[in-house]
Each structure stands twice: as C-alpha cells, then as structure tokens.
C-alpha cells in the first residue's frame, strides 16, 4: 500500500473507530468500576504516570495503550476491587493491565469480523517518569482523551497495517 493510501485508510479507520474505542472504554469503566468517563475538552496530558499496553495481532495489528497518572490508576484499582484507596498497593499495575485488556477486547468485539480474527497479547505495564513508547505503526495513532475523576486518561491505538 502506498503511503498516501495508507494515510487515507488510517484517516477513515480513525473516523469510524474513534467513537467505538470511546464507547468500549466507557462501558468498561461503567460496568467494572461504576464510574462514568467524561469527555476531555482540551488537549491535556496526564504527564508522568503509568501506561498499560495490549498488543493486537491478526486482522488488526497494533498496540492499544492507556496512560494516566498513578493517582488515577490507584482510584481505578480501588473502585474495581472495592477496597479503600489507602489499601491499594502492588495490584495497581495488574488492575490497569486488566482495564486495558478489557477495553481492547470490547473494542475489537465491536468491529465486524474482528472478534475471531484478532488476538490480544497479555498486558504490559510501564511506570516511571522518564520513558517514551515507540510502536512500529505506519500511521498516526488513534487517540481518545477522556477524564476519570477529573484526571486525564489517554487511550491510544497504534495501527500497523
């Protein structure tokens, strides 16, 4: 595929898939955390924090990542497990990994023909303040910015055709 065709395909998939990715995330947060994600009106960034990634392989290849502040991830864990915030510890990474896994699965199940033809990798979680993520994607990332408890949560889908 030429680069212009690839970028056109990417733009079309972004327009179609962006609402599906947002819906997939909203459903996971509603059902598993009892929380409503809010639309994020500005280009805010969560800054240093925690990033969870799930790889997709098959009919759709790429990486879905969720990035947020550690405080946001701790609140997510607290809500998922029904434990007080001050009791949240090492399970925070596991919790954010599971959220990313569920968003990825829910997203692919919303796209016709992708449920059977796309496998998910186990989640990987990165924490710290000095790291960059590079995916071998050949188009710009599909990015959805939302607010959880007034803190930004960035969902990013890097697609490799």
């Amino acid at each position, binding site marked *: 595929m030429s680069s212009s065709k690839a970028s056109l395909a990417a733009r079309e998939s972004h327009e179609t898939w962006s609402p599906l990715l947002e819906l997939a995330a909203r459903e996971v947060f509603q059902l598993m955390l009892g929380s409503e994600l809010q639309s994020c009106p500005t280009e805010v960034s969560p800054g240093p924090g925690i990033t969870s990634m799930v790889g997709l392989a098959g009919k759709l290849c790429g990486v879905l990542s969720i990035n947020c502040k550690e405080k946001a991830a701790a609140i997510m864990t607290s809500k998922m*497990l029904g434990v007080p915030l001050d009791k949240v510890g090492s399970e925070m990474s596991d*919790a954010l990994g599971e959220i990313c896994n569920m968003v990825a699965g829910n997203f692919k199940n919303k796209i016709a023909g992708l*449920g059977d033809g796309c496998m998910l990798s186990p989640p990987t979680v990165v924490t710290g303040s000095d790291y960059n993520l590079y995916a071998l994607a050949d188009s710009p990332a599909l990015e959805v910015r939302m607010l959880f408890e007034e803190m930004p949560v960035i969902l990013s889908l890097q697609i490799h055709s």
Partner: protein
Amino acid sequence: MAVRVLIVDDSSVMRKIVERSLRQAGLDLTQVFEAGNGAEALGVVQANQVDLILCDINMPVMDGLEFIKQLAAVENAKAVPVIMITTEGSEAHVVQALSCGARGYIRKPFTPEQVKTQVIPALAGKS
C-alpha cells in the same frame, strides 16, 4: 446457596473481582480456591471438592479450553459446572467453549447480575 468455588485467571485482580461479583450476586461462598492457569486449576480440583468453576480462556501454561477438556478425566470434578469469563466475545469463541463442555460464558466487562444469570442455572443443573 453455599458454594465452594474455584476461580481460574492469570490476573489476581480479576480473580478478586470475580469473587466480589459472586458475593454481590448473592452466593454464599464457603470456600474460594484460586488458580493462575489451567494446570494449577487441575491440581486444585484433584485435591479439593468444588461446586463451581469460573475460568478465563487466555492464560499461560494451560488455557481455559484445554483445562475443560482435561477436567473431564478428573473423576471427582468432571460434573462440576464451568463458566468461562473472558474478553474473547465472538460467536466462534462461545461455540468453541460450550462444545468443550463449558456451561456458560460471560464476556468481560460484566456486571454481578450477568454473573448471577449464568451461575445460578449452572449450579441448579448440577444438583
């Protein structure tokens, strides 16, 4: 309803969430066993009596579908109902799980009510 349950998932957080959902669904869990993959789960059912198994599909070492197949050879556990809980939500995955012997199928994300809808009939069928 007093139930001894085995929860199989490679995520400890997900095992806790499933346990919490079962309690929210009204089940009286008298014993909760946990396993991180199908091979560990086989060890649990060989050594303990359980009434219900909730099992993920995608796990390291031994996945959930292979676990169900091998469970059929465990004399004291082959009649125990197994409910799959997984992010794999396609029709083909559901058919595959049910054909392997699963009694029910719950897609993540899920609510306690969805868990109850699958678990109660499965337990009733066992008794």
